[in-house]
Every structure is written in C-alpha cells, then in structure tokens.
C-alpha cells in the first residue's frame, strides 16, 4: 500500500485504497443478446467507461453481395436483423425496385405492410420478454414468447420459415397469402390487444421495474439525433420521427396510425414507446386487412439490371432506420452494397449513456436499446 504523503496526516481516505478494474462482459454473456462484448471499467459497481467490441459475427455481407446477382441477395438481409427479417427483406427489395423504376402491385404492397407490421409485433413481443428477463423477471419472458409464437406460426404457413423468411422478392412477394391468413391476422390482432394490456398490468406498474427503468440511461433528443439513432430509441427520447410518416413509403400514407413518443428518453420511455407501437401496429393491420386489394402479388420482372448510378432507400424496421445504399455499374451484380442498420447506430450511443450507472443498469440500458447483434456486425 502506498504510504501517505509525508506532509499531511494519514486519513481514512488514504488508508482505504480502492482500485479501478475491468470486467469483460461477453462475447458470451446472458444479457448481451448474442456475441457482443462490452469491456467495462468499473469502480466498485459503478461503471466508468464502456467500450463495445463488435464484429464477433461479422460475415462481410456487404462484400458477399458483390458476388451474387440482385435477386439472390434477399436472403442475406434475413441474416441481419433476424427478429424483423420481413422489414430488412423489404428494405433491400425496395431500393432495387426504386433503381429499376419498378411498380409493385398494390396487393404486394399491402402484403408487405402487413407482414412487416406482424413482424414488428413479434419482434416487440420478444423484446418485451427479453427485456424483463434482463431485469430479472423471468416469468414475463414466457408471456412475450406466447404471443410471438402466433405470428411466427403464421409466417411459417406463409413462407415456410419461422425466422429467416426470404419472403420478399424484387417486384413483390414470393407467394400469395394463404386462405387462412386474414382470419388468423384478425385473431392475432385481438390477441395482441389483450396481450399488450396484460403486459402493462404485469410489468409497467411494478415498483421494482419502475425503479430499474425510470431515469436510467437518459438519451437526450439532440444526442439521439446526432448518434443517428432510429425507431423506438429515437422516439423514446421525444423525437417524433417515424419513417412511415416522415419519409413515407409504400401504402403507409393511406393508413392511419399514431407515432408514440417518450418525454424523458430513459429506459422506461423506450419501453412505453414499444408497447404503444404494438397497439399502433394492430391498428395498421386491421386497416390493411380492410383495404387489401386483389390482383397480382408479383410484378412482371424481366431482368434485374439497375441503370448505372447510386441508390439509397430506407424504411422503418422494428428497431429503427434501415437504409440500403448501392452502387450499380449497370450489371446484374451490385458494385457496392451498403446496409445501414438500425442497431449499429442505436448501439453507438451506449458508451455515452451508460457512464456513471451501475452494472445492472448497463444491462437495463442495453436491453432497452433492443440490439440484435448480427444486425450490428452484418
């Protein structure tokens, strides 16, 4: 132990020497939701610094895209945000359609809206479960999964997959809706209306839950925008910005829904925004089901050879702003394909907002950002 400086009397502070230390959370850790690694510098339980280390599941999807022709690239997007793969599928096909100037049949657009919203529901339900699990409430996990199962089962009948759907095609969707789709979606809508209320009753008012989320990990609106956050993370901070409204695509302008926002930007606001989004998704689904037109579900696509140039399009996945940028040289393969994913930007604010909190709060904050690691690493 260091001896105290000779010119002053030893004090309790000198006698009790503390030391900072590092803890390595991940890449295998129950609450990093995959293979994220956080190196934390700690003083006791207090977090002084968080350094995320990414790339444990980096597959270089962007480079692989340069190998394959456009229609073959859809399945790569499934492997990014695998919890809302319908939206990531869509983000990709949307930009190629824009590049081709392709008009997608209206029925296909409605189908896309519906499956994307269903996917948002399943993704948020699963997030609800996982977040409660992060906070130590093990039972709520099963409630989230119970509802998610309905959606996943529906997708299984629709496209044969439960997770990596590969359902969207350039120009439409791969298969038409099954006959039981509409009644099942109505059933899901009813179930979710009840379920979200149940979630609220179960968790929202719980004293411990409120203590663990309120005022924790506050992300100011300016920072949220500056970090390029999107989706519920951005809206939780009070920024009313939803690409479905503010950069409208597909048939969203014809559908009525609200964009819920938080007021303080803490974990609890992000939680509330997601629950409210689930209610709004149910609204969208009901309207879309009403308006669903007949006709073709796939455009007549000859050859996918976008003209030379650069294209960017984005849409709102369950996690936020997903953008796809690609450079075409006029061939059948992209020259450069860039996926700007929501989780990458959402996670980038973690080091800033988790400083000064306890280890348990970092878990809470990370959970409230709702990251999917393959979406970050690509």
């Amino acid at each position: 132990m260091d001896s105290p400086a000779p010119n002053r009397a030893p004090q309790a502070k000198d006698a009790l020497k503390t030391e900072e230390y590092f803890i390595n959370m991940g890449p295998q850790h129950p609450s990093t939701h995959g293979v994220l690694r956080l190196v934390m510098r700690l003083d006791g339980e207090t977090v002084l610094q968080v350094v995320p280390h990414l790339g444990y599941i980096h597959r270089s999807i962007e480079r692989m895209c340069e190998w394959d022709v456009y229609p073959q690239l859809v399945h790569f997007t499934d492997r990014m945000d695998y919890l809302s793969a319908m939206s990531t599928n869509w983000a990709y096909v949307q930009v190629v359609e824009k590049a081709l100037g392709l008009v997608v049949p209206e029925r296909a657009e409605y189908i896309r809206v519906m499956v994307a919203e269903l996917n948002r529901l399943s993704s948020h339900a699963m997030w609800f479960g996982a977040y409660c699990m992060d906070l130590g409430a093990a039972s709520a996990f099963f409630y989230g999964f119970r509802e998610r199962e309905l959606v996943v089962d529906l997708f299984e009948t629709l496209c044969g997959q439960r997770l990596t759907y590969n359902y969207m095609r350039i120009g439409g969707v791969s298969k038409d809706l099954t006959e039981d789709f509409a009644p099942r979606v109505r059933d899901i809508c009813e179930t979710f209306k009840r379920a979200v209320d149940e979630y609220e009753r179960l968790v929202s008012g719980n004293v411990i839950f409120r203590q663990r989320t309120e005022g924790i990990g506050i992300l100011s609106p300016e920072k949220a925008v500056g970090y390029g956050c999107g989706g519920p993370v951005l809206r939780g901070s009070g920024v009313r910005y939803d690409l479905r409204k503010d950069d409208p695509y597909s048939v969203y302008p014809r559908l009525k829904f609200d964009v819920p926002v938080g007021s303080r930007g803490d974990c609890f606001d992000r939680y509330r925004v997601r629950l409210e989004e689930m209610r709004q998704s149910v609204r969208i689904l009901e309207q879309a089901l009403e308006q669903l037109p007949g006709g073709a579900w796939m455009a007549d696509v000859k050859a996918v050879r976008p003209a030379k140039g650069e294209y960017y399009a984005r849409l709102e996945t369950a996690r936020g702003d997903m953008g796809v940028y690609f450079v075409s040289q006029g061939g059948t393969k992209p020259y450069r394909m860039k996926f700007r994913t929501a989780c990458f930007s959402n996670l980038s604010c973690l080091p800033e907002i988790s400083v000064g909190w306890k280890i348990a709060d970092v878990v809470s904050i990370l959970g409230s950002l709702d990251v999917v690691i393959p979406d970050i690493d690509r």
Partner: protein
Amino acid sequence: MERAELLAAVVAACPTAAVDAAPQLPEAKVPREAFRPLMERLKADPALAFDYPMSMTAVDWPEAGAITCVYHLASMAHGHKIVVKCDADRARPEVPTVSDLWRGCEWFEREVYDLFGVVFTDHPDLRRIMLTDDWVGYPLRKDYRDSRIAGKPY
C-alpha cells in the same frame, strides 16, 4: 428546401463543389480541402440544419485511384436529404473526420477505416471495429484477395 435550392446553398458555401441534382438524392462532391468547412456549414446553418447522419460509407474505385467517402445526411427539422462525397487518395487515403459534428459518424468512420483503410484525421478513437486488430488488408477494397473466399467478385 427544394433540391435545386439546396444545391445552390451548397455551392454558395463551397464554390468548388460539383453538384448534381439528377440522381435519386441531391449530390455534392467536394474536394478534400473544402470538405470539412462544408460539413460544418451543413450542420450549423439553420436553413440547412443537417443533424441526422443517415448513413456513411465508402466506395472503392481502383481505376480512378480513389476511395469515395459517401455521407448521407438528413435534416429532422426540414426533412431534406443530401449526399456529400469526398474522394480520398487510394494510395494514402485520408479524410478529415466529422465525428465531432455527428457522433453517429464515429462508428461509421471506424467501419470505413476497418474495411477500406481510410484514415480519418482527428478521429477520437480510430480502431478496427469489425475485424480483429491484427487483420491484414481491407476486405471491401476491390483488390482484396483472401484464400478463404471463393467465387468471383463483380
């Protein structure tokens, strides 16, 4: 702000910028010296107010000997978007950082550094982000070869 108006404002701020209103999003290509002042202007000017870093990436052009950094910016207040491009010399790629203007660009730039080898000067924490620290080469460059990769690139 309309597309033409926007690009006029960019030219006013940076006369050396080559603007193009034809593509899907308005584009401005600026030389490296003018890049940083223009970006500061885009962020600070209340009429432009580009506060949201939509995306940032790079494209490798071996024939031209350049790596083009591509910035997609959006404005929350005005709803307009712009693409700013800046060429880095492929032999010695260096571009000034904008991570202090848009914090989100900190990780975007790290990714470009990692996969393209573009050095962002004055970046606070320029380390590899995806690959291991001892990785050799920059996988998204067109001339990157790896024995583990099969097939033929574009």
